[in-house]
């Protein structure tokens, strides 16, 4: 038997994905349709390994407009699968069968699968499958993909339809349309095989040039078809396309009369009742806020943060206590030990200052009465949090406190870098090789895997929200706000998650179907300050502005403002032009989501992150490891000590670009090196400053260097530096995610380039105007900044250029 291909077609929300998973099991291949970012899935039928099943995108029609529709019909017309399985939602037959009437016109064998028959039975409606099959003149199977019933019969119907290869019988569209179709077939299309004529006749009437351009009609044929269409339209006083669409729906209504009984058309279903509350005029926004807080709290703040911390600090850090046993006791001892350290250091320093000998012989009177002030530093201020007086007795007591050993408190599992590092050391591997493996590769893999748990938690939520029907309501509730900025209501979730970390935020944009809205969301999500930018914000705010309470919130406003400005600005550019996608959207019935499909969707998205974004992140981690650890020192390229960072290749690159930042107020090499290091991870900006200003390792917010920063920068130049770092290209991990979601190198380059150019413009305008307003002289750069501002203003306020027709931009 020759290998067969069967296509699976149907409306969105008809249960197509569930059926596809049922039919193919784990035997799937996921890719992309050529030229578009629409996902393509193929698999082999479970019990017929020689049959390939191609999952077409979920569509309502075979129109030539959305990328999904174009992909589906191009595939059906050009690849000609041996049969089509058309899945229809039994609870929504009228609209679902509209697509069926189009599929039956293609001249291919069709099997209709009426899904959700369990829900139909429950609601008290009746569908007479036998009658429907007779009227459609094609095999109809009654199934429930969720409950896994009727599937075997569907498969055998589909396989035998494919083997018999009998073209489906089209549904008649009424006397007038039928006669004009016959006319077109006879006069323009006699050269085509019989079963293909009807489809092309329809397309000629509908003036669907995309479908008919390959026909190569003679001039006479084309003119005949055009004349018939013109006569028909004049007679009907409407476009042929509209007449045909209306005729299709009328045919469907006639089909259903007698084969489908709705129990009570006006009774409220459970879904209607839920919707009454969930999208209620007053309750909708509060309910939305609660759902979002829950999603954020669980996937970012609690569960997400726990697993991420465990992966970063435990598995890929020093190590962890098995099951957490002994951790509390260990941490208590550790605290005690660090207090003792501060006591001894302070006392010894005081003794040294006073010239008192603490080491040899009996202690002098002076030593006995000596007290020292031990300072405990806080996180948020360069001033000590508290000061304690240390006496000799306290000092001697402190000397007896030993550093706690992890092994004494429970089962300590060392982290991967510790184990591998120790192993490499025992093999006496060259230091640079050890560093490559531990700081380059393992840290790189760790950086990827660190995101994974959080990503899975988030994807689980997204899958739940989508499967239960709430995601469509989010778009419904927020459309009014977001469409002004060229975004979709569904852009809210990526932005919200992006305030934790841009990587899952960008990945969350997957739920936006429209290409334009999705790309816009991907490009702007990283403007929202992520968790890793907070230390940088705290450092600048603390060092130069005295750490006021409004400083961090202000940066969020800047982020939101950057999103809005970019949305307005970009939607007028040729890349994003075109009328906003028509917001004619189905609000699917609320459903209890099936566990299988939710988990599968979570897994597929998570796995695609590991595969696609992961490889980019891993490679760039190794690259960054190399340029930041190696440099030309003492006349040769070699690995550097931590303190020699200013000689690294990264520092040299930073120094090379430093002049670029002169008009922004931070043209010193330290700033540009810190900015470049920020590409690895934004919090690195703080630690890089620590090293570059000679303070070695600093705490998270770098309080140790605040004084140095305050001397190095003015308030204006520091703010400019912060603005640039907030808005410019995100870290490599986020760029990897952008690459994955854009699925296109040029679009990735555009997004990163736009972000950086936008950041540069904002910093330039801010710095130069702030200088001018604080009494600086008017320089050439002030003029450039004013011109840049005028340019911004023009791009923002110019009238929207006339758009190309919806969808054709894709």
């Amino acid at each position, binding site marked *: 038997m020759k290998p067969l291909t069967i296509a699976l077609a149907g409306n969105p929300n008809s249960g197509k994905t569930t059926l596809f998973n049922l039919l193919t099991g784990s035997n799937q291949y996921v890719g992309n349709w050529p030229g578009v970012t629409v996902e393509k899935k193929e698999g082999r039928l479970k019990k017929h390994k020689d049959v390939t099943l191609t999952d077409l995108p979920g569509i309502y029609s075979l129109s030539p407009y959305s990328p999904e529709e174009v992909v589906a019909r191009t595939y059906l017309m050009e690849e000609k699968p041996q049969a089509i399985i058309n899945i229809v939602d039994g609870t929504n037959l009228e609209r679902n069968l509209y697509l069926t009437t189009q599929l039956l016109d293609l001249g291919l064998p069709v099997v209709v699968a009426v899904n959700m028959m369990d829900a139909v039975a429950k609601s008290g409606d009746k569908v007479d499958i036998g009658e429907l099959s007779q009227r459609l003149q094609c095999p109809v199977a009654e199934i429930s993909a969720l409950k896994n019933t009727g599937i075997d019969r569907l498969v055998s119907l589909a396989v035998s339809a494919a083997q018999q290869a009998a073209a489906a019988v089209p549904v008649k569209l009424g006397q007038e349309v039928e006669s004009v179709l016959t006319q077109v077939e006879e006069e323009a299309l006699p050269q085509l095989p019989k079963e293909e004529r009807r489809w092309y006749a329809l397309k000629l009437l509908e003036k669907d040039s995309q479908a008919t351009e390959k026909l190569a009609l003679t001039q006479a044929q084309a003119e005949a078809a055009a004349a018939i269409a013109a006569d028909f339209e004049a007679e009907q006083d409407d476009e042929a396309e509209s007449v045909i669409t*209306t005729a299709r729906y009328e045919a469907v209504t006639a089909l259903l009369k007698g084969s489908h009984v709705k129990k009570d058309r006006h009774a409220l279903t459970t879904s209607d009742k839920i919707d009454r509350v969930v999208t209620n005029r007053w309750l909708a926004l509060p309910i939305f806020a609660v759902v979002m807080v829950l999603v954020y709290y669980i996937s970012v703040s609690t569960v997400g943060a726990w697993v991420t911390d465990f992966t970063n600090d435990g598995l890929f850090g020093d190590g962890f206590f098995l099951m957490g046993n002994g951790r509390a006791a260990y941490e208590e001892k550790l605290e005690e030990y660090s207090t003792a350290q501060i006591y001894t250091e302070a006392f010894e320093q005081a003794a040294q200052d006073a010239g008192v000998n603490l080491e040899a012989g009996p202690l002098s009177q002076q030593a006995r009465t000596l007290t020292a002030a031990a300072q405990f530093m806080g996180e948020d201020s360069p001033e000590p949090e508290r000061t304690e007086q240390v006496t000799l007795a306290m000092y001697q007591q402190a000397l007896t406190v030993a550093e706690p050993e992890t092994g004494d408190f429970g089962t300590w599992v060392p982290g991967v870098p510790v184990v591998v590092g120790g192993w490499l050391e025992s093999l006496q591997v060259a230091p640079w090789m050890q560093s490559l493996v531990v700081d380059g590769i393992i840290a790189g893999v760790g950086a990827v895997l660190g995101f994974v748990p959080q990503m899975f938690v988030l994807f689980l939520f997204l899958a739940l929200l989508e499967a239960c029907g709430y995601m469509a309501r989010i778009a419904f509730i927020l459309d009014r706000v977001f469409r002004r900025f060229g975004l979709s209501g569904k852009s809210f979730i990526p932005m919200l998650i992006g305030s934790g970390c841009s990587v899952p935020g960008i990945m969350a944009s997957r739920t936006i179907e429209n290409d334009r809205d999705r790309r816009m969301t991907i490009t702007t999500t990283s403007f929202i300050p992520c968790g890793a930018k907070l230390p940088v914000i705290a450092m600048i705010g603390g060092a130069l502005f005295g750490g006021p309470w409004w400083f961090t919130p202000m940066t969020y406003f800047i982020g939101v403002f950057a999103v809005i400005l970019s949305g307005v600005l970009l939607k007028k550019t040729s890349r994003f032009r075109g009328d906003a996608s028509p917001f004619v959207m189905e609000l699917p019935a609320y459903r209890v989501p099936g566990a299988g499909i939710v988990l599968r969707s979570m897994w597929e998205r998570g796995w695609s992150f590991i595969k696609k974004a992961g490889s980019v992140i891993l490679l760039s981690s190794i690259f960054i490891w190399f340029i930041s650890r190696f440099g030309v020192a003492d006349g040769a390229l070699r690995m550097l000590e931590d303190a020699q960072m200013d000689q690294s290749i990264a520092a040299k690159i930073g120094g090379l670009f430093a002049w670029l930042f002169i008009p922004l107020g931070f043209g010193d090499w330290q700033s540009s090196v810190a900015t470049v290091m920020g590409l690895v991870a934004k919090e690195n900006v703080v630690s890089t400053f620590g090293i570059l200003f000679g303070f070695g390792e600093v705490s998270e917010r770098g309080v140790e260097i605040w004084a140095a920063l305050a001397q190095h920068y003015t308030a204006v130049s520091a703010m400019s530096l912060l603005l640039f770092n907030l808005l410019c290209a995100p870290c490599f991990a986020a760029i990897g995610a952008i690459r994955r979601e854009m699925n296109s190198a040029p679009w990735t380059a555009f997004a990163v380039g736009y972000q950086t150019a936008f950041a540069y413009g904002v910093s330039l305008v801010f710095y130069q105007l702030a200088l001018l307003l604080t009494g600086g002289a008017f320089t050439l750069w002030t003029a450039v900044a004013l011109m840049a501002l005028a340019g911004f203003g023009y791009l923002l306020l110019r009238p929207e250029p006339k758009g190309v027709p919806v969808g054709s931009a894709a």
Partner: protein
Amino acid sequence: MRTLRDAAIGETVTVARLLGEGALKRRIMDMGITKGAEVYIRKVAPLGDPIEVKVRGYELSLRKEDAQMIEIHPAG
């Protein structure tokens, strides 16, 4: 003539004609809003736009701006 935009919440109307052309009109028709179709206006989104209607047994949302393209007369 009245358009779908003018219809009150809770009203059931019949589509008389669709104005406009191109992709948007096609999309609206593909979703089942064709001449003679019965449309029930269910609600308006909390922020005043878009609207939610019931047509051909399912729920559809569309913007008021687009609803203006749909001419209606009272059901029946």
